[in-house]
């Protein structure tokens, strides 16, 4: 008598700890092999786009912090303000531009550290989680000293930043950079040569270059698949055109490549911060922009590079105090739907490693 087998449909989530939020995945299994994956989103939908239509531009900054990608609040503020400033023709003082560039890179480090730590836990490395959060705490302390917030800093304003950095902050930031470069070497010692880690990640979850382009993947996920695209280089904003940095690109497209790209990005961020601290000019930090800002009639689409990828804002203004329509192009949303392509054919245990390596934030996916 032949053993009867059949496909099993398994619901993973929405309360599964390694889905990094409330993501439900409907997985079709044949034994241990994954036949199909359908991500089911919408559990964290907060209708940020609609809420933005009822708030003035300065109130929207605090909304962009919370409603979108909460691990990279400053990147969201920058995305919104780049649209507002482009449409309104608002000039930002030089010092504010350098400060923004520096803060955005600190935000990138903080966001990547959360990713590295949680992904480490997903594939069974607990130490890296504790170490990453130790360094992230230092970054967040720096943010707290300058902006007053630890996760939601309402710091950028149309035409500048709210407050100048306090005295001695720059020395602390540079001291952190020196310390952090050594920590990065420690992370590499912990993970990169680790045989268990390499077996779990090398060659797992390959995203081919063509599929990545077709699905609109961006950020580190696309760069790990051999697409040398970075908004900071392609469409420079703030002072990214005046600092030197490299875009790490890997050809493999597997989990290990995504890991290496993000690790290298953190090193490049430190490099940018050093240059910003060196070139930071004295002067004004905020242009004279009224609190109740009225933008001229028109529409604009701008893009910025958030830690997760290409974050775009499409803003329509009818000349009032509030935007008429805001559309957010979320990087995590596009990256998430590469999952069903990547995961087919792998085992259940690999699914966790692949999902973690995409670095999704469900608030960014659902908006």
């Amino acid at each position, binding site marked *: 008598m032949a053993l009867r087998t059949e496909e099993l449909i398994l619901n993973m989530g929405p309360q599964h700890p390694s889905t990094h939020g409330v993501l439900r995945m409907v997985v079709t299994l044949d034994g241990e092999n994954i036949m199909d994956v359908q991500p089911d989103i919408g559990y964290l939908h907060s209708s940020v786009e609609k809420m933005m239509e009822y708030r003035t531009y300065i109130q929207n*900054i605090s909304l962009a912090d919370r409603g979108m990608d909460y691990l990279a609040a400053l990147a969201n503020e920058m995305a919104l303000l780049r649209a507002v400033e482009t449409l309104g023709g608002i000039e930002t003082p030089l010092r504010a531009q350098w400060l923004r560039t520096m803060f955005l890179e600190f935000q990138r480090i903080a966001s990547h550290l959360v990713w590295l730590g949680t992904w480490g836990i997903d594939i069974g490395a607990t130490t890296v989680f504790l170490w990453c959060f130790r360094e992230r705490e230092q970054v967040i302390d720096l943010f707290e*000293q300058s*902006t007053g917030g630890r996760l939601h800093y309402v710091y950028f304003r149309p035409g500048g930043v709210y407050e100048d950095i*306090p005295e001695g902050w720059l020395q602390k930031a540079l001291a952190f950079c020196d310390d952090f470069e050594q920590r990065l070497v420690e992370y590499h010692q912990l993970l990169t040569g680790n045989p268990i880690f390499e077996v779990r990640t090398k060659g797992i979850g390959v995203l081919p270059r063509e599929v990545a382009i077709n699905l609109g993947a961006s950020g580190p996920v696309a760069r790990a698949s051999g697409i040398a695209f970075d908004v900071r280089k392609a469409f420079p904003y703030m002072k990214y055109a005046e600092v030197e940095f490299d875009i790490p690109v890997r050809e493999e497209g597997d989990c290990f490549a995504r890991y290496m790209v993000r690790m290298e990005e953190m090193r490049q961020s430190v490099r940018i911060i050093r240059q910003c601290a060196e070139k930071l000019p004295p002067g004004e930090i905020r242009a004279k922009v009224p*609190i109740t800002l009225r933008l001229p009639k028109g529409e604009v689409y701008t893009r910025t590079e958030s830690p997760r990828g290409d974050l775009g804002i499409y803003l329509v203004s009818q000349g009032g105090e509030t935007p008429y329509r805001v559309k957010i192009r979320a990087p995590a949303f596009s990256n998430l739907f590469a999952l069903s392509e990547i995961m087919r054919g792998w085992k259940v245990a690999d699914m966790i490693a692949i999902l973690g390596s995409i670095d999704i934030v469900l608030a960014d996916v659902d908006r």
Partner: protein
Amino acid sequence: MRALLERVGRGMEGLVTGLRVTFTTLLRPKNTVMYPIKKVDVSPRWHGLLALPIDPQIGNDLCIICFQCERVCPSRCIHIEATGKAKERVLTRFDIEMDKCQYCGLCVEVCPTEAIVFVPHYEASTYNRHNLNYDLEDLHRAAPKEPIARGVIR
């Protein structure tokens, strides 16, 4: 047999490397604090609870009832009412629903007389939501007479 010994040797090597990390970490300074007993300093710019400090010269708060904070608040958690006209206007109600507040700091930014400020205090949890509706007296009392959460060791 030789392959087995090699595997055992590699395993021992890994064990020694791991234990070395454990022992060096033992000697490093601690990164955590025992929270309820020890507390971490917050920075002077900390977005904590809101307060209307009493100015010692006037004996009252500095609010001039311009309604700017009420208007700019994104979550609409500030409610102000006043009676009288022109210079004799008196605050009759200044409520902040602290459970709605998102600590963005826009009210502090727009206040022309710096009447409304942040207090370096972060322990606001209660068992009842209504305790978080701060009225004028509560906001006067929360004024920073002395720093509250600053590395207090019991």
